């Protein structure tokens, strides 16, 4: 009878710090290329330059028609400039998961011994960079086209707010990406949270106009806190007041990333148990 020599074959690479970063980097660079939206530079440019402009123009005109003044227009313009971060954070991460299921590469990924933390965080790197660019361009449009005033002194505070928002939103995107592992398609999730952001996160009108229950739901989304921090920075609020909101954004980011890891592991098990990994 043939026996199997357990020590035969090439030795397994030890799980070193190097292998962690290697997994991180591979996922940061290669995984986004597997999705249609981020495979081509013209698509990335479209996400950064065209989507924010169109969304802002649309809602600003709606505000104009409904009789809103300059301050309402500025409010809406800034809100939509920031909310377009949803495309590059939530959509792109969910799309990566969908795309890998469709191409049949997800199963191979899940049987690999790659460090999951490095794998998931790696996937967030490019979306964070594109999110930063998208929000920055959106804010630039808000200033140049829609009369949003940003005093120079507030720019450093604004930069911190934008960066933290990008991180928190991508964390939220990763969290939804974990759910997407289980669903047939995650584009649904992307759509839902794009619309929910428009309604509950104070994008087009202050969240305080909403019923209390909806306001509380809104606080569950990182976009709500990120947008509040950005608005506070632009308004020149005191560092203490802005720092409180930064703290909230950081908490939202940490919770999102933490839940993302937990959900990826949970839904990985669910998907393997139900066989939904091969369904799309």
């Amino acid at each position, binding site marked *: 009878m043939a026996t199997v020599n357990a020590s035969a074959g090439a030795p397994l690479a030890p799980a070193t710090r190097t292998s962690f970063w290697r997994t991180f980097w591979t996922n940061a660079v290669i995984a986004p290329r597997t999705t249609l939206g981020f495979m*081509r530079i*013209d698509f990335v440019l479209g996400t950064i330059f065209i989507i924010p402009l169109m969304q802002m123009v649309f809602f600003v005109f709606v505000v104009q028609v409904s009789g809103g003044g300059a301050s309402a227009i500025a409010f809406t313009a800034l809100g939509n400039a920031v909310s377009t971060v949803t495309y590059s954070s939530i959509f792109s991460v969910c799309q990566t998961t969908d795309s890998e299921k469709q191409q049949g590469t997800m199963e191979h990924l899940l049987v690999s011994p790659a460090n999951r933390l490095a794998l998931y965080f790696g996937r967030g790197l490019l979306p964070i960079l594109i999110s930063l660019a998208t929000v920055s361009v959106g804010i630039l449009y808000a200033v140049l086209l829609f009369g949003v005033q940003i005093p120079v002194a507030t720019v450093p505070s604004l930069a911190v707010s934008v960066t933290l928002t990008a991180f928190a939103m991508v964390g939220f995107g990763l969290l939804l990406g974990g759910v997407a592992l289980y669903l047939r398609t995650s584009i649904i999730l992307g759509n839902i949270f794009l619309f929910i952001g428009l309604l509950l996160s104070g994008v087009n009108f202050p969240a305080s106009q909403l019923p209390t229950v909806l306001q509380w739901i809104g606080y569950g989304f990182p976009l709500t806190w990120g947008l509040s921090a950005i608005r506070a920075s632009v308004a020149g609020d005191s560092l203490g007041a802005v720092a409180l909101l930064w703290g909230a954004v950081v908490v939202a980011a940490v919770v999102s990333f933490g839940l993302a890891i937990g959900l990826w592991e949970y839904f990985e098990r669910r998907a393997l148990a139900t066989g939904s990994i091969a369904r799309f």
Partner: protein
Amino acid sequence: MTPIPAIETRGLTRTFESRKGFLFREVTRTEALRGVDLAVAPESIFGLLGPNGAGKTTFVKILSTLLLPTGGKASVLGHDVVDDSAWLRPRIGLVLGGERGLYNRINARDNLRYFADLYGIPTREREARIESVLERVGLTWAADRRVEEYSRGMKQKLHIARGILHRPQVLFLDEPTIGLDPKSARETRKLVRSLVSDGVTIFLTTHYMFEAEELCPEIAVMSKGRIVARDTVAGLRHLVGGDRTLEAEAYGFEDREVATLRALPGVSKIVSEEYGPKTRLTLRLRSLETTPDDVQAALPGHTELSVRERRTSLEDVYLDLVEEEAR
């Protein structure tokens, strides 16, 4: 009067272009087909063999109106595949196979109903026709299960069922038994044979030599976008040097020994292969004159020499032709 070929191509070419780069577009051209001339008689099974990337699927897609050629002419049932595609489509069937190409979320019956409607199968006949093809491919028992629950082999059978649902006159089968277990593969081959007896012309591409040998009276070998040989299996054997093959194996041979073997009567070709410490000489023979004993006698002094005779297989023919083309 010579019948019109069921399939005919003249100088058929197809070049694919792919572009990359944003500011500086780099165009890469791949010649998938490079002047293919072929004629296939009606109501027969014709086999097309070739390695991966030889251009077989491209050829099948052009013939089944799913791809335009970049040069040359192709006709099926005497009609041009480009100009008369509307006339041809209801008369031809295509089985591409694989995991994709079916509506996975719905069951097999609904998949077939949909395509029956697109092919205009009379409504009163539709259900009976679906039952009949499901039975023919052996899927009746799973007809109401979602396709996503199917094994690869079952999906392959459903592809075939869809391909024959509208009773085509010409059926293109692109590797129809890939992924099937031996029993299902044998049933599929039986099905293919029965289709020919019903008057269907079958154009089959495959990697499996025994399948081609078993099913196809005529075979063409495609390599790098060209037909490198086309004949019956016996004709192809003759083409690569004969029906008989002798193999001599030992720990290396000298050049003069190979030259001696080459001089033996009827030897048309010698191929040398090394594996591990041993060398194998494969001799193709056109006649019966040279025997294993003659080879043994021509190679004195080898303590571990073994010589054996066998019939030249289609695989030998295929490998000879493809390797020759590669050189």
